[in-house]
């Protein structure tokens, strides 16, 4: 839907500009109204408010870049459709759709629930009718599995997760190219990847904190103790839904500084020897997360 509106705008602007030139536009206000600048800026500001960005200038720059690429795609794409009816144009078209979908997904952090959900919806709709040019499938069937998988891959790599770390996660969420992905599955996949990226970044920070005092690689015992504590807390938080508050309380008790100090001190005195490098730590932390992700079926 958003796409249609943007397309229309791109189609409208040039004639409007041309008109304004010939008519020597009476007032500035009229010129702005004709060029649709007000709507353009309002849209940009709305997006920015929704995303609550830290970097307004960067955000607006990206936003307008995206709009520009959309209007390019709008004009270029339609020519392509007529000329070579699919394949090459279709591929480029698809890539553009994917980029735009990713751009929408990047707009809001997943903790801004409603904004994030809106953006996921927009991205889903964008990808869903990307079968467009050939027109064979039409929309409504769901996003193609290949596009969905590609979206997740991009999200993870943009989130700073090394491909080797995200591979087991993507294996669980992965869809075949011929499969049609419904919205719920898409949303779950996207959210999981976004959360996972945050999780891995946090794990990397944690590693730095654990080796902080003496800048040496973390001893295996210590690393295992820290991850073991996390695992233990997550295990308590499984079980019946009704007692969620209690479970949370219990988990937080297990993750208290006192408990950790105790776990680390015991690990240091008696635990496996050797050291653990950052990658190994990251993998161990990732495993804790990934084993809890449901395999898509």
């Amino acid at each position, binding site marked *: 839907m958003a796409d249609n509106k943007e397309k229309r705008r791109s189609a409208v602007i040039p004639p409007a500009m041309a008109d304004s030139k010939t008519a020597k536009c009476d007032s500035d206000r009229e010129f702005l109204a004709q060029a649709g600048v007000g709507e353009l800026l309002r849209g940009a500001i709305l997006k920015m408010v929704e995303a609550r960005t830290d970097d307004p200038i960067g955000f607006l720059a990206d936003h307008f870049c995206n709009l520009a690429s959309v209007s390019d795609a709008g004009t270029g794409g339609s020519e392509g459709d007529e000329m070579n009816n699919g394949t090459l144009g279709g591929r480029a078209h698809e890539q553009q759709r994917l980029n735009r979908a990713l751009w929408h997904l990047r707009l809001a952090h997943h903790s801004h629930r409603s904004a994030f959900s809106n953006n996921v919806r927009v991205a889903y709709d964008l990808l869903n009718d990307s079968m467009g040019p050939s027109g064979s499938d039409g929309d409504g069937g769901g996003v193609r599995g290949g596009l969905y998988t590609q979206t997740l891959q991009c999200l993870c790599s943009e989130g700073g997760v090394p491909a080797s770390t995200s591979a087991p996660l993507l294996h669980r969420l992965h*869809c075949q190219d011929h499969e049609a992905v419904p919205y719920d*599955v898409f949303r779950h996949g996207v959210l999981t990847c976004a959360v996972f990226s945050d999780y891995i970044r946090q794990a990397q920070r944690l590693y730095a904190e654990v080796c902080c005092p003496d800048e040496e690689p973390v001893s295996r015992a210590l690393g295992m103790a820290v991850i073991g504590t996390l695992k233990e807390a997550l295990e308590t938080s499984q079980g019946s839904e009704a007692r969620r508050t209690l479970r949370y309380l219990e988990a937080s008790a297990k993750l208290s500084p006192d408990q950790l100090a105790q776990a680390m001190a015991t690990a240091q005195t008696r635990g496996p020897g050797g050291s653990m490098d950052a990658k190994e730590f990251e993998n161990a932390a990732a495993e804790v997360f990934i084993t*809890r992700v449901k395999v898509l079926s």
Partner: protein
Amino acid sequence: MSVSADSEPVSCTVKPPVFLQLGDAKTDTVKSGVCIVDVTLPFGKSVNIEEISFKNFYTAYVTVRLLRKVPGQEAAAKWTTALRDLALMENPHTEGGSQDYSSIHRAQMQVVPDHVMSVRFILRQPSSAWMNFNLQEIKIFQKEVSDLLSDLTLVDFRPDLEGLPDPSTVSSSIQQMWALTEVMQTNQTTASIGRFDVDGCYDVNLLSVP
């Protein structure tokens, strides 16, 4: 505030009321207006009280005393006053509140009602208008997260942190990771894409020959 309907009261023994008598217990029937009700838990047991509930029967004021044991030292149990002269009736001489249900919550008590072995109610009724007074249906409810909280408060182990990272920063990082994992888990979807194969293999039973 009130205890949820599904929680069960602690099993305990409510002893018969003992009235404080003036003069000779047999001949003199003048009552002093003071009565004591003891509630004991099974021997060797203790309870972390969440709430005490009862039905009043013409008692004007109640004082609650608790026999609490010090964890780790079985012998050193001590009586303390948890609540002094709580008014149960608006006016001792009138009916108001005389047969109401009341409850005393943990937060109302002046001491922490943990590790309680015995509860003593001291009932007072200064008005001579009533022949008798008592508390009925006394029930004690236990705090559910007792073990957890006692774990929290009893950490007196101060490990040697020489050469170890700061536990509070490590703790806050891990808590973040825990929360992220929880976010993922609570957002798991039940939707599926209707696949019959698992990891590229089909269930043998699905491969039937017509």
